[in-house]
């Protein structure tokens, strides 16, 4: 019997965690803040993968584990599956979520993202803030996969919001 958490609580917690790390603990070192947030995600993913792979046969290859992340793992976290999975069959996987839940409540205007105007800098900052919120889910994916025995690097791409792509590079 799984216990559930209110979605708004998770949203607030994530926002608060990002602000705290970026503005209080590591105010002038965004890359350090990013690493800390990613590490928290890593631990969460590590523990969740242990729980969600219970009563399930072991994965025979990488693709099966990635499929597990796309389907069951994502459903448990976001109540939906990954919308599109691409791979080059050489260890790189792109997981595309057309409406990533943790970004939908951020008030960023996606239409102004590509326009060139004097306010360009502030929008740039908007994208920067959004990408800060993605280190946590990146860490979750990396933690889950490394617990399944797949060391990898995960990055996120938000060039067209609210679509979000996670790029997984498996270390050989």
């Amino acid at each position, binding site marked *: 019997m799984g216990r559930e958490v209110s979605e708004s609580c998770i949203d607030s917690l994530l926002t608060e965690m990002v602000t705290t790390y970026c503005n209080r603990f590591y105010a002038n070192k965004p890359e350090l803040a990013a690493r800390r947030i990613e590490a928290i995600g890593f631990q969460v993913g590590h523990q969740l993968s242990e729980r969600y792979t219970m009563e*399930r046969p072991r994965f025979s290859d990488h693709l099966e584990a990635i499929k597990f992340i796309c389907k069951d793992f994502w459903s448990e976290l976001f109540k939906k599956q990954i919308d599109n999975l691409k791979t080059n069959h050489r260890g790189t996987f792109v997981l595309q979520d057309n409406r990533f839940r943790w970004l939908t409540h951020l008030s960023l205007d996606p239409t102004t993202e590509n326009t060139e105007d004097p306010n360009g800098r502030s929008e740039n900052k908007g994208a920067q803030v959004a990408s800060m919120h993605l280190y946590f889910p990146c860490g979750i994916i990396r933690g889950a996969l490394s617990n399944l025995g797949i060391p990898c690097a995960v990055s996120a791409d938000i060039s067209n919001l609210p679509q979000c792509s996670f790029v997984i590079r498996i270390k050989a």
Partner: protein
Amino acid sequence: MIVCVAVVGHQNNPLYIQSFTEADDALKLHHIVHSSLDVVDERVNNPRKSGPTLNETFLGLLYPTENYKVYGYLTNTKVKFILVTTDLDVRDADVRNFFRRFHAAYVDAVSNPFHVPGKKIISRTFADRVSTIVKSFGLSSAD
């Protein structure tokens, strides 16, 4: 009667080992657990066609010794569970049931935010839960 249970990490590092005998034979039981690890590796690397379903977490009877039977279980995260029992007549369903409950207890223990992954499990709650599961082993498959 279950005489020993063990949790072994993915690098064959012991995470938890507990014996349930009055006698002073912990060392002997540890040795049995230790030697069973090779059998687990062998089972996983050369799956038998006729054996349990491919890649199932439950590995079945690893090997019988004179006095003991050793069962194994390998999770998706490459953590091994070993069970040593003196019962000669063990039902497979009972062992499966045991491992299922044991796995649930293990997952709850490592989900503790203060637990460091890959380190020994030091938790009274976990120990209590394990001894409850061990005591109820084979009594009934009601759970």
